């Protein structure tokens, strides 16, 4: 468990944050650029000193201003994956990977070959960083951090410098880390789709402070946090279990608290758990169950909250057994006479739930990962 409570002033910027993160899974630090995310991560790593506070990992203090404890970065044993990978240019990929290896074999629990295979960097071992693509560099940087046997992995926007294709290339590897190596990860990002796919817990950072902290489903379900979680991409996050596949139409049925959700085929075994993000703008409303419609997902529910912000569009929170958001035009809002407590039908197009809306968690594994034993 990571316990953080730090304060510091840096020029005109004041940082005052406190939160705890669990011993496994991914805790995401989400916020806009300049919110203080990187500063916080640098404090955790020991690269920036807070004015006051305490940082402790599994009960041991890494920093404690009251007790005059300030472990040096090399003594903290936290892996750090930087946005710009920071590979040593004068060493081969192999040289980079073994740089942080503990000297004594007895201290090595993470297996070199396993990490290399996991990250798919075997063919790159003898190359120089200069000869690698951005995505390859980031995979090597992740491997390098892991092989130093960290107690916690810090990842500061590891995908921010990459294009969409490279991002899609790396995300599965990070998912594997989380599921295979069971190492706690603090993941910094300003991209909600990454966080929904990866994180269990979200720490919402804004202006050097923590605006909210909790399970991702809860944070995304709060209308009052919408200015921070983002308007366009806003939506509910639903936890679900794979029920079965429709081989003929390449569809997958997901069981969740509100019923069964049909989505484009997901390569997961029945029983696997995953998270689905349903964007508010992909949800339509009807007062009666629609007939002869192409929409595969229709759920009965009630309106529980109407967004305070009244413009050409209105945000609504629905209860369909699980929280769901919908965004409708003000005209439809008036025409349907929507108010809190009104029963409605929520319509979700299956095709709106693409690969990027789905993130698997916990027991879920990739197909083809026969090893699956962890390390």
């Amino acid at each position, binding site marked *: 468990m990571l316990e953080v409570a730090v304060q510091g002033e840096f020029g005109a910027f004041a940082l005052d944050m406190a939160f705890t993160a669990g011993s496994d899974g991914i805790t995401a630090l989400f916020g806009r650029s300049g919110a203080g995310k990187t500063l916080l991560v640098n404090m955790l790593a020991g690269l920036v000193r807070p004015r006051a506070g305490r940082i402790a990992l599994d009960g041991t203090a890494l920093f404690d201003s009251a007790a005059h404890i300030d472990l040096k*970065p*090399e003594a*903290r044993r936290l892996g*750090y994956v930087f946005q710009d990978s*920071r590979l040593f240019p004068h060493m081969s990929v192999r040289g980079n990977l073994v740089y942080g290896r*503990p000297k004594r074999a007895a201290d090595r629990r993470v297996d070199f070959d396993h990490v290399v295979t996991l990250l798919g960097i075997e063919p790159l071992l003898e190359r120089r960083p200069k000869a690698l693509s951005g995505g390859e560099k980031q995979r090597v940087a992740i491997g390098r951090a892991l092989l*130093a046997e960290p107690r916690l992995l810090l990842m500061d926007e590891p995908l921010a410098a990459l294009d969409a294709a490279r991002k899609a290339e790396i995300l599965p590897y990070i998912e594997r880390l989380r599921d295979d190596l069971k190492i706690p990860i603090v993941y910094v990002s300003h991209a909600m789709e990454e966080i929904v796919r990866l994180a269990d817990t979200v720490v919402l950072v804004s202006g050097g402070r923590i605006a909210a902290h909790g399970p991702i489903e809860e944070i995304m379900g709060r209308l009052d946090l919408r200015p921070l979680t983002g308007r366009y991409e806003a939506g509910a996050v639903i936890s679900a279990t794979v029920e079965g596949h429709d081989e003929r139409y390449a569809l997958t049925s997901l069981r969740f608290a509100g019923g069964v959700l049909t989505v484009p085929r997901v390569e997961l075994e029945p029983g696997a758990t995953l998270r689905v993000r349903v964007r508010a703008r992909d949800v339509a409303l009807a007062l009666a169950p629609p007939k002869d419609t192409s929409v595969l997902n229709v759920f009965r529910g009630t309106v529980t909250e109407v967004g305070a912000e009244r413009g050409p569009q209105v945000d609504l929170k629905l209860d369909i057994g699980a929280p769901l958001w919908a965004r409708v035009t003000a005209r439809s809002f008036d025409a349907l006479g929507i108010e809190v407590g009104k029963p409605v039908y929520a319509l979700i197009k299956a095709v709106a739930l693409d690969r990027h809306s789905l993130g698997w968690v916990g027991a879920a594994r990739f197909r083809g990962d026969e090893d699956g034993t962890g390390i």
Partner: protein
Amino acid sequence: MHSARERRKVSVSALVLSAPELEAVGLSLKVAFWCMIASLPLGIAMAWLLARRQFPGKHLVNGLVHLPLVLPPVAVGYLLLLLLGREGPLGAALYETFGITVAFTWKGAAIASAVMGFPLLVRAIRLSLETVDRGLEAAARTLGAKPWRVFLTVTLPLTLPGILTGAILAFARSLGEFGATITFVSNIPGETRTLPLAIYTLSQTPDGDAAALRLVILSFLLAMAALVTSEILARRMLVRLGM
């Protein structure tokens, strides 16, 4: 005197170095080599101090390091003599504790040229040191490396181009050092008479012109060789460093 200065025919034998000339070349190379070797660790330490540390009196130290660039070499040589001569505070201590005499020896010549070349050495290393990405050092520390290991495995290798340039500059500067050397260690054949001093001596000697010219050409070739070597090495190094 005049008749003695008449030019003789240039024959092939005029291109062959005489024993004292060879001695001067050998001595110059020895002095330059030890000047470079001895000043490198100090130069690296000073460059690091100036590039990375803030301390009171930093401007003063920086000024002292650069002083030989602007001071007359003879003045530097004289200061060295005062300081390191047998009677000087440092020289006396050196002699009493280690039995080492540097004044009027080739070691003194190496010290004189090291002092004169020091600003060039420090400058080259400092510039290179300032281009090293501090983020790489931070990354190394998060990987468990202590500051010394970071310095030896990350900072120093990435500074190598600058160290090489600085070392070659110090070497070449030493080959050409005259004023501080002659003032500090005099002009003793076989001990402190390096190439420039030999050229000077010959130019003051009847019938010395041809020999002086030969040594001038030789100096030119040595300096060119040093600079070309450094260029080639620097290029190879950049490739090896993955830059």
